[in-house]
């Protein structure tokens, strides 16, 4: 077992969590507004730092408080990466895992939830618990890491994680095209991202330079144009919809005043910003009409984070109650019975 400077200095955090009536894990606050706001509680921070990194294992273990940018720098020195890809590199690993928001290269590298191999977290009563295991392949017991990813700090305070890494591609380039992104996708083998705003499509290809060039030619892509600008704005959300619904959803979003959007073709994530909260609500209604949903990421005060009851609420509530019977962890973050009892 690797000695962990993270786990060695948790006594204070554990006793704080155990003693408090309400506990709010905090990272860099870059994802602070995602979901519903918490009611006030004692703020706790996970330690950062690299605990173990051997490039030959293609895994890295770090304190959950480490910034994604700091982790990327360490992995980059060995020619590796972990494609968490948050909007800002100041975001902490614990924060991006807790919110579970996948980065823009999901089309090729899969969702955030596939990255966490082992988690260590502090439970509501102050115990330190491990879930999963440090190896790239593991079916020893229940998949607790997947349960923690996207749990919004309501199951435990993430303090240490082991992540699956990968070699960085030899070459990467953003291309553009004004032709149909869905047709372009059919002509490519494994694009890393196809970002479409209704007019222009930006395509990220990674790999051997000759392959990247050949793929771009086959799909009719232009080399100029660079990376897309991710929609910025005070009121932000992300739509999750079946990828095949994007062509129908796009005109609906275009019809809403003050709404800008960028869709990940092949994935079904649509990044939305609005000039006012009403625009975000209208985007949510458009998503809903196409069997999708919108997660409020920032702004739009007073607008519900999820726009409806969570699926499988009964099971979810039982899991939450099993770990946190008094509902003291990130109270209010997730809608449901437990959060409203406080």
């Amino acid at each position, binding site marked *: 077992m*690797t000695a962990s400077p993270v786990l060695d200095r948790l006594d204070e955090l554990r006793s704080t969590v155990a003693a408090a009536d309400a506990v709010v894990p905090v990272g860099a606050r870059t994802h602070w507004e995602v979901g519903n706001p918490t009611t006030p509680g004692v703020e706790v921070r996970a330690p950062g730092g690299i605990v173990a990194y051997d*490039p*030959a*294992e*293609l895994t890295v273990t770090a304190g959950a408080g480490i910034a994604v940018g700091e982790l990327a720098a360490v992995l980059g020195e060995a020619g590796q990466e972990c494609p968490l890809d948050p909007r800002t590199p100041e975001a902490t690993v614990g924060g991006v895992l807790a919110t*579970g928001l*996948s980065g823009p290269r*999901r089309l090729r590298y*899969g*969702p955030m*939830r*596939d990255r966490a191999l082992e988690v260590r977290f502090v*439970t509501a009563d102050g115990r*330190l*618990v491990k*879930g999963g*295991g*440090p*190896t*790239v*392949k593991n*079916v*020893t*017991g*229940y*998949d*607790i890491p*997947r*349960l923690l*990813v*996207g749990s919004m700090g309501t*199951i435990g305070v993430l303090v240490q994680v082991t992540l699956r890494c*990968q*070699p*960085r591609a*030899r070459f990467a380039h953003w291309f553009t095209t004004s032709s149909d992104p869905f047709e372009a996708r059919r002509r490519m*083998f494994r694009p890393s991202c196809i970002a479409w705003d209704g007019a222009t499509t930006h395509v990220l290809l990674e790999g*051997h330079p*000759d*392959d990247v060039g050949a793929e771009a030619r086959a799909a009719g892509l232009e080399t100029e144009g660079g990376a897309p600008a991710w929609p910025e704005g005070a009121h932000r959300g992300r739509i*999750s919809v*079946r*990828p*095949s619904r994007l062509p129908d959803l796009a005109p609906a979003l275009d019809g809403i005043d003050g709404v800008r959007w960028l869709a990940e073709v092949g*994935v079904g*994530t649509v990044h939305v910003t609005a000039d006012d909260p009403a625009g975000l609500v209208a985007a949510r209604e458009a998503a809903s009409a196409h*069997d*999708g*949903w919108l*997660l409020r990421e920032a702004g739009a005060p007073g607008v519900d984070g999820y726009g409806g009851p969570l*699926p*499988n*609420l009964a099971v*979810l509530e*039982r*899991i939450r*109650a*099993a*770990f946190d019977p008094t509902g003291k962890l990130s109270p209010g973050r*997730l809608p449901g019975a437990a959060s409203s009892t406080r």
Partner: protein
Amino acid sequence: MAAAVRVAARHGRSFVARGSGTGLAGGATPVGDPLVIVTTHLTRILEVNAEEQYAWVEPGVLNLDLSRAVHHLGLHYAPDPSSQQACTIGGNVATNAGGPHCLASGVTAMHVLAVEVVLGDGSVTMLGGLEPDQAGYDLRGCFVGSEGTMGIATRIAVRLLPDPPAVRTLLLDFTSIEAAAATVSGIIAEGIVPAALEMMDAEITRAVEDFVGAGYPRDAAAVLLVELDGLPAGVAAQVDAVRRVGTEHDARTVRVAADDAERALLWKGRKSAFGAIARIAPDYYLHDAVVPRTRLVDVLRSVYEIADQYHLTMMNVFHAGDGNLHPLIVFDQREPGIWERVHAAGDAILRTCVDAGGVLSGEHGIGLEKREAMPLVFSADDLDAQARVRDAFDPSGRANPQKILPRGSRCGEMQRVPEGAWV
């Protein structure tokens, strides 16, 4: 199936779902007096969507049948356990099954988009979905690998992957197992994650060659089977790199399959390993553990020492790329006292793997077989957390009880399992 679960509930009986019964950890082995719900007749592929690259299947669809059914669309289902001709997708979901091609593509959990499940109370619900994210906890991810203890899958949506435009398969042979293992590390250090990276030791290589005649060198101490796939230029560069790394580590030969027929032959050797050993002894016990890739050599050395210590014949054929060992003990169960030695050696192997920083199972699951070994890797608090998740999913406690979590965490679950029932 929901009706069957409700009947079980009405009569206070537990229930166990069972597919083809190929599982090696006893997850589908009935213990006590459960209702056994067999899924093997639920073999319909309900929908294939080539545009969105997914398929809805019933749980009894055989793994290989799914890939065959979508082959004409240029798609495949990535997890490919060695039993893929016989095992069901439902069973794959239960055990979070792996296979040689999981090195690059990932295990079953990365390929299941949604599961419709019957919970312990007979209610039916959908976990996950075809949209990329669902609000709340990832219950889909939690269900995969839960070995039937959280309910039964009735419909499964799996991700299909496009077939790679270029595939090359290489066979490298070595005069020492250390050199083969060093080559594995060297390939990863080159920034290459092969589609598959399999190792076979001297004993199994000889057995396989005698069985199928795939052209494996009979006198090799170890062979590596390396598959590289993707786009043509990248694959060509990787073939060159693997050849160079192999040569640097004294590979005697590096054979690159010239065509699909030769590729298939090389794979036939690997996939026939368990058939081949039947010619050596009538019985075998296959282990499954994962160690950090960098500890492969040390652990293998210990594994051979354990075999010597217990006077057992041990062979190793395994997924070297992800450190997933499969020590294979071959024996004749008519030999008096043999089971005690086989089990003792198995325990020793598991402990060795855990001591090296490994885990109890890479792709077979815990089932009954490794239940009591769980405390080797998990503390009482860790196990308690897992029990909480399970009980939250199935408050009735009727979904495949007595699997995964060790005895003692609940009352009344002590049952005798027939010796070797799941082997």
